């Protein structure tokens, strides 16, 4: 058994909360620069330029890229041979979020009840997904998720006969409906297969994969490329004001599913898609 102390977990989470929010992720930065060269809309080019300037100012002044510093989504892969000492793992992660959002002057955007909307004032609780894996390492991935784009996400329970064409149709339809509301250029995470909730979690997980890394499965990687191309023909463009840069990337994760089903979850994210991982 390898021991990991809760204090180290709290520190790591706090650091990632601040780092992801002030420094644009390298894959997104590259994506923005590339798309600026390909964009033909004058308004679009100007917006992409403002987004690049914004990223530069945020990093230099150590302030958030976007004021919506998100709800903290955390994926934990914990090795079976890891033992956590000093307290509870979930508490340690939430403590890290509390600390990071306070010390980083990040916005506290969480309300304690969906109907009785009182702000918790420390951005907790985080949404945490646990996976138990082999070995003795502990991997924590953090993705603060903004809600302008989150609100534009959809889940479809397709029929097996809808097939790959059906999946393409609903993915593009969701991107088209999201339009300017999701702060395009968007990053799109798609989860296909599993059950209702599994597809949604896969879609979220897809957003943690850098956009310059395609799927290991050949047909999925081809699908990612095809859909990215088609999404960029929708005309939405930067901020929805027209152009070819509608998405920076589309990542797809798949999972075995039931003989009767074809769940497709589409998690819309934006040009400040934030993700970072650490192994302790």
């Amino acid at each position, binding site marked *: 058994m390898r021991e990991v102390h809760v204090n180290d977990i709290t520190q790591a989470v706090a650091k990632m909360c601040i780092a992801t929010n002030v420094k644009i992720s390298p894959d997104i930065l590259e994506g923005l620069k590339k798309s600026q060269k390909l964009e033909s809309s004058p308004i679009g080019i100007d917006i992409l330029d403002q987004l690049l300037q914004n990223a530069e100012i945020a990093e230099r002044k150590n*302030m958030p890229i976007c004021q919506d510093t998100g709800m903290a989504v955390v994926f934990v892969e914990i090795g079976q041979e890891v033992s956590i000492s000093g307290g509870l793992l979930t508490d340690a992660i939430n403590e890290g979020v509390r600390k990071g959002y306070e010390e980083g002057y990040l916005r506290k955007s969480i309300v304690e009840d969906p109907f009785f909307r009182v702000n918790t004032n420390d951005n907790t609780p985080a949404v945490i997904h646990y996976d138990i894996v082999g070995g003795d390492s502990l991997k924590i991935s953090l993705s603060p998720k903004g809600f302008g784009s989150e609100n534009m996400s959809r889940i479809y329970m397709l029929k097996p006969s809808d097939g790959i064409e059906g999946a393409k149709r609903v993915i593009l339809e969701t991107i088209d409906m999201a339009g300017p509301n999701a702060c395009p250029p968007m990053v799109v995470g798609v989860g296909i297969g599993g059950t209702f909730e599994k597809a949604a979690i896969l879609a979220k997980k897809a957003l943690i994969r850098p956009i310059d890394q395609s799927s290991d499965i050949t047909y999925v990687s081809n699908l990612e490329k095809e859909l990215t191309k088609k999404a960029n023909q929708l005309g939405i463009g930067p901020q*929805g004001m027209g152009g070819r840069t509608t998405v920076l990337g589309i990542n797809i994760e798949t999972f075995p599913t039931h003989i009767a089903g074809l769940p497709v979850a589409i998690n819309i994210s934006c040009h400040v898609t934030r993700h970072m991982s650490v192994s302790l």
Partner: protein
Amino acid sequence: MVITTPLKKHIINQLKAGDKVLITGIIYTARDAGHKRMIEQLAKGERIPFNIEESIIYYVGPSPAKPGEIIGSAGPTTSYRMDDYTPELLDLGLKGMIGKGNRHEKVIESMKKNGAVYFGAVGGAAALIASSIIKAKVIAYEELGTEALRELYVENFPAIVLIDQDGKNLYEEEKVKYRTYQAD
């Protein structure tokens, strides 16, 4: 085009969808919870906390200001969530809104009726936009934190006219120009 607040009729008359503007003057911030509170106050026959006539509301929930700073990052939030509340405010004299994203038909109708403009700021360009905010103070609902009502003094705040008082919509006009997608 450089425009100043209060947003007078002669300024609104010049603004067309697609115009890039730099806004200077006082604007107010309100988002979901702030709007709900204002509408509740109006329902009780009370006045809302600022003079709404010829004003601009910016839909934003800024991140906290660091010590010595005026405000944190402050980009626009998605506007449609305010749509249920907006026509009532337009009827009271609100003339401009700054946000991002589509508006409901009833808002556009009310804008046409009342002669108002909807501006877009670049969503996510929050650190850049913050540099045009010169002064900021909370004027009401302080307990709402980021959602409190604020009075901002802005200089050369960058925006674009998304929907003008004739209902012309930049999103609709530009999207079709670049749409080459055909479902197969």
